[in-house]
């Protein structure tokens, strides 16, 4: 008995620095609305109110990926140009003066979303449109749109399945692209969307169960459509009232406990089982771990001489290889310059050609010959 006690103390002592090191060092947010058309105003308002919240809690624009499939603010139907409101009192203009939309219009597709998560993008993709996370990044993934059992529609044209999403998250985990993820989804039958996830360290929550709709909260009669969904509305209410600044000690568990069927009109679901440490650990995570920008700095405390030696050796090899590559490149360049000197430049630029009647007779002649040839063939 005593021995095991000592072992436990030892284990705790060993684990303590590990838990410190397990903190995240950057925060990212992926906020996706997936519906086009004016009557889906509320989905863009949902996503923009989340955008406002994460910006309020300190995540910079460079670490927020915002996907808006349609233009509500400058839509001709909008009586309030340049604005998007998520409340009929119109107190807060969510579009404001300083907004950066990373993917918009037809760019919001399932392919681009999955490419964004897994970072499988071309060379030319600008950094502002990439999710440049690492294994110390906490990511908030918020999605809203129209969905059904195990799918979410994108722009009323294509769908992402629960399995696709689960595989994308798994690939992120394999590529060490996240530390912890908070996945939130507000759509009909939302809880089915996270049911297939199988990667560790994900807390998932959704607005409604299988066979349940997710409802809108209220409409603005001057805007003319519903402006926000219930689930998002009550999430925001909690975040605005309880999480006033980055120092808030409210936990994810507190947020989940605030979900109430009477208010949301559907059964909001939560999934903890993927999280390391289960429900208890998941519930104790701070809201600001996902919605705020907490910058923990990781310092390598103990000196690891063997690692340093290895790194030194590695850098030497890299330097040698680089030099070799440079030499080869220089040699190639020499060859190519010699080669180009030999051949005079040939410009291969296809431009529009002027239409002229210069060779009118040749064209006619060609036509006549062709006709005559056909006639001869026919006669034979």
């Amino acid at each position, binding site marked *: 008995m005593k021995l095991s006690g000592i072992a436990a103390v030892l284990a705790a002592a060993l684990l303590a620095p590990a838990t410190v090191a397990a903190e995240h060092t950057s925060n990212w947010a992926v906020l996706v609305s997936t519906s086009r058309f004016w009557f889906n105003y509320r989905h863009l308002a949902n996503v923009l109110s989340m955008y406002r919240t994460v910006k309020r809690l300190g995540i910079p624009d460079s670490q927020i990926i915002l996907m808006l499939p349609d233009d509500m603010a400058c839509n001709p139907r909008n009586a309030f140009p340049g604005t998007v409101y998520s409340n009929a009192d119109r107190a807060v203009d969510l579009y404001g003066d300083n907004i950066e939309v990373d993917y*918009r219009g037809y760019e919001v597709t399932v392919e681009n979303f999955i490419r964004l998560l897994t970072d499988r993008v071309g060379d030319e993709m600008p950094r502002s449109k990439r999710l440049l996370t690492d294994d110390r990044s906490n990511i908030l993934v918020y999605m809203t749109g129209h969905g059904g059992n195990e799918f979410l529609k994108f722009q009323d044209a294509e769908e992402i399945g629960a399995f696709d999403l689960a595989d994308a998250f798994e690939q992120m985990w394999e590529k060490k692209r996240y530390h912890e993820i908070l996945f939130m989804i507000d759509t009909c039958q939302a809880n089915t969307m996270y049911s297939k996830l199988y990667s560790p360290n994900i807390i998932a929550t959704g607005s409604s169960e299988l066979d349940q709709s997710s409802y809108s909260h209220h409409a603005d009669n001057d805007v003319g459509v519903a402006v926000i969904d219930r689930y998002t509305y009550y999430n925001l209410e909690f975040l605005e009232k309880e999480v006033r600044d980055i120092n808030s000690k409210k936990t994810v568990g507190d947020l989940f406990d605030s979900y109430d069927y009477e208010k949301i009109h559907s059964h909001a679901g939560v999934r903890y089982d993927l999280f390391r440490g289960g429900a208890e650990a998941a519930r104790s995570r701070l809201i600001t771990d996902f919605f705020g920008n907490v910058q923990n700095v990781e310092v390598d405390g103990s000196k690891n001489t063997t690692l340093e030696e290895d790194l030194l050796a590695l850098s030497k090899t890299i330097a040698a290889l680089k030099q070799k590559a440079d030499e080869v490149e220089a040699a190639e360049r020499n060859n190519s310059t010699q080669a180009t000197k030999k051949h005079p430049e040939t410009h291969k*630029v*296809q431009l529009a050609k002027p*239409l002229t009647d210069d060779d009118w007779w040749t064209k006619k002649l060609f036509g006549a010959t062709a006709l005559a040839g056909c006639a001869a063939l026919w006669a034979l």
Partner: protein
Amino acid sequence: MHRFLSFLLLFLFSLYASGVASAADYHEQLVLQPLPLSALLASFNFRSNTSLSAFEAHNYRFFPRSLGQILQHAGTRELHLRFSLGHWDAESWGARPWNGTREGGTGVELWAWLEAEEEDEANHRWSTLTNALSGLFCASLNFIDGTRTTRPVMSFRPEGTLPNTNSSSNTQLLYGVLPREVVCTENLTPFLKLLPSKGKAGIASLLDGHKLFDASWQSMAIDVRPICPPGGECVLEIEQTIDMVLDIERSKRPRGNPIPRPVPSHELKCDMTKPYQSDDTCYPADYTASQDWTLSQVFGRLMKGACPLSDPSVPPVCLRVPHSRDVYVSVGVREMKNADGLSRCFEVPSDAEVDIVLPQIGQAGVTGHTANGAILTPDTPPLYAERSFTGYGQERGGVQTILTNPSPDKEVEFVYMESLPWFMRIYLHTLQARLDGQNGADNSLIQEVYYRPAVDRARGTQLELRMRIPPASTVFLTYDFEKSILRYTEYPPDANRGFDVAAAVITILRVGQEAVSTSSLRTTTLLLSLPTPDFSMPYNVIIFTSTAIALAFGGLFNILVRRFVAADEGPEVSIKTLKTRIAARLSDLVKKFKQAKIDRKE
């Protein structure tokens, strides 16, 4: 028509003159001009320089670093980017600001001179450039692919000094356009961030997305060009321009309550000269009656003083109204009337909130002024152009462009350029130009045709025509086209809305005998409706075929595994037989149960 132009040129010249003095400097100016029909044109211009050597050494002062790095990375010599929205009403507003050189068609337009020897290299750099700009300006510029890119031959000329322009061997011009792209606040945000003042001071502090995107017409432009003054050091110049036409009545509405409510009848302004004017009939009076505004009303905020970085010799705000009209300004603002009698500029302190008030005519103490003298008559543009679709049906259509030369004595020569999407297959042999009032085509109108046919899914049609219109006449330019059917996955999510066809670009080369250096205009974009399939059709097909297969398979399976016998051959089915069967089963069960009991006892 050259009054506005000459004014701008004067302004440009003053900028140029001061630009020679120092390699890195910054100017900004806002020109306000009331237009007929209760409109107000506001032209914002921001211009900064950096010497080319400083730029190449990554030494940025006023030149925006984010854009500079992109230009260097993509090997761009000269860049022009346009974000436009709305329609310039040339009939009532007259000639365009900057002679139309600082505007684009609806959506986003981009053209650039890239350093490249070969076509592939140019294409690669172009894709690098568009992708990088799409990240910077929050626009889907990365959609400018091969199908939306053309290489104009006659339409665009470099504004700056390009090395070896005469041989043009190592710079290539590429032009891309996205007519469907929306222009909104997220495009204004990066635009303002490029300014040295970041939109916090100077005239940029007046730029508010809520007013800009409520304008009847607006155009944001970014022009980067290298300029080599003879004998001087080459400089790279960036010019950012925003032009907008505000509806004064509309922009005066409070932001929280912009929906107009009917005015009570006793507040209606009626035209008393109408014979039917009475208590219950009213013809609205001339709009010019409401030509009074303040800066804070039309822009929704006060101007936050002059930008301290800008050149103090350039007055930040100018207003083009006759000198006979009074203008009230905030304390500290100095008014300078220009010699032409039609414009005045204001010198603004850098630390004060500034407002400018243009009072209503008659109210300002100037009596005996009619509405006619209150605003300047706009200049007549050199050419009017409108374009529309003709024809009907889902298979074929036609395009008609009406070009009018308003000048009574001067011939206009111009280049008309269309870049059409590949799914609009034009029949070039149907292209004809006809003078109004004449029958049949007039071959002398079209002087030169440059044409590059479309390739399905690879590139669009490029058509450039050099045309000439005699004085005071109208020309109808028409051609027919065929609509192609797209593949199922090629339709956008809102296919039933239609497909936007980019504006035609008209570059004016010559008016009368004098060559025009830069003047252009654009038609509106067109909305082409293509035949769209019923998008639920594949699902119907799947359901139908599945049902058919299920029926066929079921029947076949039955036939294969069952033996069919005549009714009298089979076992008799009656209630009696059923009873006996059930009784037999029951007795069996009872027996088994008993047996089990016996087994357990043993």
